[in-house]
Each structure stands twice: as C-alpha cells, then as structure tokens.
C-alpha cells in the first residue's frame, strides 16, 4: 500500500527473518516507516520485515518459507473470519468452517482493498495491561450497539488450526474485563458473539420449573435460590391451577385473610344449601376441611368459590365466587354476593397468573425467594398447572430447595435453552414405606406431546405400556410407582418440544432398605 494510505491503527502482522513462526501482531504501524505493508483483510495488514531477498538454501530462507506458509494460512483464516463477520452484518447465513469447499477463503477481496482505522463504528478489544498476572481488557462496542453480550476467547498462538479457548462471557453493561492467570509468555484474546464457540449452560434467562411432590415432615420450607455474579432483576410467574389440579395458590389480595393455599373441593350438597340459606358454611357440615382456606367447585362446574375460614367464628365463608371452572382470570371476574346482586369485590385480589419480582443486588450473590408450600404439585397422573416461570434480565442460576426436617430435597434448574426432548430417567426405589419412585415434568410450549415408556421396574398405576399425554405451556404431569420397591429409573420420556423433567424418590433409604 502507498505509505500515506496505511492507517495509523489496525492489526499489523510482521513477517521477518528473526521470528520462528508467526509472532503477535502489532496494534499500530511499525516504527520503521520504510517497511512495505500489504492489506490482507479489513483492518489486517502484513508488514514485510525480511530485509530483502535471502540467498536460496540459506537457513534464513528456510525459516522464511516456513513462516510464509504459516502466514498464508493465517491470512486465509483472517480473511475467512472477516468475510463471515461481513456476512453476519448483512444478515446472511455463515457457512461452517471449511463448509464452502473452495479453500480460498475470501477471494472476493481485491489486493487494492484499503483498510480502515479503528473507530467508533467498530467493535474492538483493548488490551490495557497485565498486572499481577491479571490481564485488564476493555471492550469498545460500536457506538450504536448497547447491551451486547460477548464471549472472550484466548489462545497462545495463531498457528492454524487455532485452538480458541472460551474464557468468559461479558454481561451487557460490562466493558472492563479482568482475566486471571495471564502467565503465558504470549497470548491472544478475541471477542466473539455469544454462543459462537460454546453452547448454552445452566445459567439462563427463562426457566419453567415446578416442585414435584416431595414427601416431607412439616414444617416445610420451599424456596428458590437465584444467583448471578452481577446485579440482575427478574420475575417469577406462577401459572395458577387448572380445574383438574388439587390446590390453588392466592397471593397479593387486598384482603390479607384470603392469601394462601386453597384445596380444590367439590362443594357438598348440604354446604351449598347452607350457603344459599345463610350465606355461610358452618362447622357442622362435613365433606370439607374446616380450619383451612379452600377453593370450591360445584359439581356441575358452573362456578368456583374462594372459601375463607374465619377462625373467630369457626365458620367458613364464601369470600368470592366466579362463574365457570377455571380459576385463572382478572380481578373483576370474581364476585361477592351482596343483596343478590353480584358485585366485584370491594378489595383488590390479584388472580392467576400471579407474578412477583426479584433482585440480585449489585455485586452479585444469591437471592432467596420463599415459595408457598401450596406450589408443590401433589396430584398424580393428571395434568395440572402448578408450575412457575422464572425470567431474568441477565443469566442466572436457579436452585430449588425444600427444607423440611429429615426430608429435605433440592434441584438445579435448567433454563429452556438446556432442556431436551429425550430423557432416560435417573431415580431410585424408595425402599421405605412412605416413599415412592416418581417423576414429573413441565411443558415449555403449547401443544407439547409427551410419550412415556415406563421401565420394566416402574410399576406405574394404569400405565404398563408406552402412553402419551398432551400439555400446554406451563402444564405439569406427575406420576409415581405403586410400591416402595418399584423404581422408575430407565423410564424414557420423548417429547416433540422441550420439556423440563424431574425424577427421583419422594423419600428413600440409601444404599438399601435396611439403612435409615
């Protein structure tokens, strides 16, 4: 290139007699302005520092030949990578490495192509310093790009094939990177689009989870541990229940007495009569559990009632009711009976789905979210909706904790990106009378068909052969073995869309039934 057209900054690969192999490139023009410079790709330049033509057969010539070969390969790689970046920028599909079969890697670049200087239109990675074996790097995103996530890659030499090693993923607001263990004599850092080189991991921004039916000794404490290395916000959304689940979960009611867990029950005829005559249920009625809040459905499925227990009088009162059999709905769907004229409730009562936000504080850490015990899915072999969705502004880990005396259980949650459509269950036999081998699942997408092939030891009720069930997003299915000696391990679950699967034993003796 003519000297006056060579940009001040760029990537300058120096080819010279002294170096054995390809050395690290320079970020700016070489000090010696007399060296010839060739443009090899966008922002990439080759500096000829050979000191003239060496004599044929001399050691210098051999070294230069080897170096030239390495350099040609390198140029090919740089030009291919640059071409891919341009294609990405234009929204085109990028061929996989080697996939185009031409091997010439970027033949559309003419030798007269002139490079560009690093400016605010470009993404660049500034290597500031290495202090105490920690490298300080700064990401300079293009001026019009915000909150982009990058992977930082590293290798110790650029001889092809380059073995880029994934080091870390930046957070969207992160520009300063610190890399420990920077002890190599020579190393190369590179920014890459997230997920270019590594697959997904168990930190995510979207989870569909549930608490399967753990056997527990009260008091049970369900909670979620949500962790992140940086400040993060997010939301937990409870799906609520469907009419064929057995518990409901109500929160955020203006009338605090209504918050809590409701058991879905068919209203006994006598209770309905009592309510029609006296606008209340009384303790003399049987067929429902006094002393608890409950959600009532009449046997015809024409209405639902939230039944509030009044500890002062010992009576259960119909607090609100709504038509139909689906408890999901807006506030105004729920009515109170006043003078035989249905009215919206005087107090605001948030219905399903219910959301609550969470925050991982600045500097990162774990936030502990207490979960109402009513969210544990207790029904078996029916489709329910006692799931919940966790969404986050940045990737988080989500761990489920069931802290109960002598009966604790835990799980590591998988985000939707890590879920699969093919599971072979790891569980175990309970070996103790109150325990059962069991499994459960949550669908992440509407119209998911799940096919379950019970293992020979599963002994599921009603299902000995492969069977299918259909789930909508957030719907759950759970089933357990019939006796404590059965084991669902090896049961196959295949689905046409990703599902989250849980398996184990509700309670177990390990290593065998003689070990308390």
């Amino acid at each position, binding site marked *: 290139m003519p000297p006056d057209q060579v940009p001040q900054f760029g990537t300058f690969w120096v080819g010279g007699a002294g170096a054995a192999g390809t050395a690290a490139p320079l970020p700016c023009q070489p000090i010696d302005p007399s060296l010839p410079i060739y443009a090899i790709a966008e922002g990439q330049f080759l500096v000829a520092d050979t000191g003239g033509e060496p004599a044929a057969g001399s050691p210098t010539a051999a070294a230069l030949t080897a170096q030239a070969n390495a350099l040609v390969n390198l140029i090919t790689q740089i030009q291919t990578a640059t071409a891919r970046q341009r294609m990405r920028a234009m929204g085109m599909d990028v061929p996989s490495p080697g996939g185009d079969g031409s091997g010439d890697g970027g033949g559309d670049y003419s030798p007269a192509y002139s490079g560009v200087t690093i400016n605010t239109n470009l993404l660049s990675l500034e290597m500031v310093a290495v202090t105490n074996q920690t490298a300080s790097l700064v990401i300079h995103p293009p001026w019009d790009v915000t909150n982009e996530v990058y992977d930082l890659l590293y290798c110790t030499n650029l001889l092809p094939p380059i073995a880029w090693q994934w080091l*870390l993923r930046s957070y969207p607001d992160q520009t300063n990177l610190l890399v*420990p*263990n920077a002890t190599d004599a020579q190393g190369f850092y590179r920014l890459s689009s997230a997920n270019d080189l*590594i*697959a*997904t*991991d*168990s*930190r995510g921004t979207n989870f569909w989870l549930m608490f399967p039916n753990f056997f527990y000794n009260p008091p049970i*404490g369900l*909670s979620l*541990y949500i*962790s*992140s*290395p940086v400040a993060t916000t997010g939301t937990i959304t409870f799906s609520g229940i469907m009419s064929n689940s057995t518990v409901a979960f109500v929160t955020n009611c203006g009338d605090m007495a209504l918050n809590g867990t409701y058991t879905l029950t068919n209203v006994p005829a006598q209770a309905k009569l009592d309510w029609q005559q006296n606008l209340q249920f009384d303790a003399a009625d049987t067929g429902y559990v006094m002393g608890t809040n409950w959600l009532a459905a009449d046997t015809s499925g024409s209405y639902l009632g939230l039944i509030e227990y009044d500890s002062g009088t010992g009576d259960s009162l119909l607090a609100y009711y709504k038509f139909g059999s689906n408890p999901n709905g807006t506030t105004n769907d729920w009515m109170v009976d006043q003078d035989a004229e249905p009215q919206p409730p005087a107090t605001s009562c948030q219905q399903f789905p219910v959301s609550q936000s969470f925050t991982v504080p600045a500097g*990162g*850490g*774990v936030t*502990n979210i207490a979960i109402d015990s009513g969210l544990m899915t207790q029904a078996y072999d029916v489709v329910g909706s006692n799931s919940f969705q966790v969404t986050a502004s940045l990737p988080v*880990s989500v*761990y489920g*904790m069931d*802290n109960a*005396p*002598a*009966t*604790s*259980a*835990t*799980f*590591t949650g*998988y985000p939707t990106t*890590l*879920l*699969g*459509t*093919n*599971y*072979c269950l*790891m569980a*175990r036999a309970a070996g103790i009378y109150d325990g059962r081998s069991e499994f459960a699942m949550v669908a992440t997408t509407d119209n998911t068909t799940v096919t379950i092939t019970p*293992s020979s030891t599963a002994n599921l009720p009603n299902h000995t052969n492969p069977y299918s069930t259909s789930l909508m997003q957030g719907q759950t299915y759970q089933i357990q073995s019939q006796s404590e000696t059965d084991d669902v*391990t*090896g*049961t*196959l679950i295949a689905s046409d869309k990703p599902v989250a*699967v849980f398996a*184990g034993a509700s309670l*177990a*003796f*390990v*290593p065998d039934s*003689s*070990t*308390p």
Partner: protein
Amino acid sequence: MPVDSWGRQALAISFAGRAGGDTYRVLAAANNTIIFTNGVVAGTNQAGQFLDLIIDGPVEFRVSQPIQVAHFANGSGFDANSSLKSYPDEGDPCEILLPPVGHYLMTNIMATPEGYDTNYLNIIAAYSAVTNTLVDGMAIAATNFMAIGNSGYYGARLLVTNSGVHTVTSSQPVEVEIYGFGNFDAYGYFGGIVK
C-alpha cells in the same frame, strides 16, 4: 439431564463428614456401555440399565458410551458410629447429578440453607487451575486437594458456613457440589453445567 447432555467421563470425591464411601448410580442410554471406575471395569450396562456402586475416595468414571452418574449420600445408619459425625443420626440420603467432565461452569454462586449442622463444598478442578480456584475470594490450600486417579483433575472438600452465599470461581471450569447434613437430614445440589 437430557440424554444429549450426558458424557463419557465423570469425577467425584466422597462427601465430607461421612465414612465408608458414598453410593453412585451409573445409568446408560445405549446397549453394551462398559463402565470403568478408576481404570478398572466395574460392569456393562444395557440401555436404561443402571449400576449401583459404593465407592470410598476419589473416583473417575470412564465409559464407552454416554452415561449419567448420580452421587448419593448414604442414610445415617450406614456410618452411625463414625467419628467423623457429631452424633449417630447425623446424615441422610441426598442425590446430586454429576455434570460430565468438560461441561463445568467457571463461576458457581450458591447458598447454604438454614438449620444444618454442617455444610460443605466438594470442588473438582484441573491441575492447572488448582491454585487459581477461589472460594469466596480466597485460595484453597494445595494440601486440601487430592488427585482423582489419572484424570489430571484434583478434588477438595471444604467446610463452609450455614445460611450463607458461597462463590467458587476459577481460571478454568470447575465442578462444585454443595451439601449439608443434619439430624436424619441432608441436602445437596451442583453448581451448573455447560452443554
């Protein structure tokens, strides 16, 4: 874990505070899966079959086809008279799935719940990352690490506080198990997995 997240190598060291070894269950997804533990053939599984083993000390699972390994703590009756425990009924079963080697996270941020007598971390790191593996910002004494067979990985067990947040970071991905024991009680989970 979905079958496509399974691997051919898994590593573990025994749970701290317990004696006589832990129970491992190795599950195969394909026929004729030959299972090696610390270089010795332990068995051959057909698809959907499992192999239960009780192993004391570091263990490397290597197999001919992908497996899922679960690491179980034994019931308190298994080692009731162990001097490692404060009282005979301390401990209970818990289950932790082992992420395959090469699929660990570099940053693991986890919490210990309230109410357990002891809480521990089991950390497994490549040799070159041993000195750069930090727990709550502090290096781990090299003497805490034990070699896991010929895998090139080392494992350490650390006592940590109740009801607290614990961060394990490293220059390379590490396997982290967090667990604790109480009166006929136990919990345990792993930090995460990269697919």
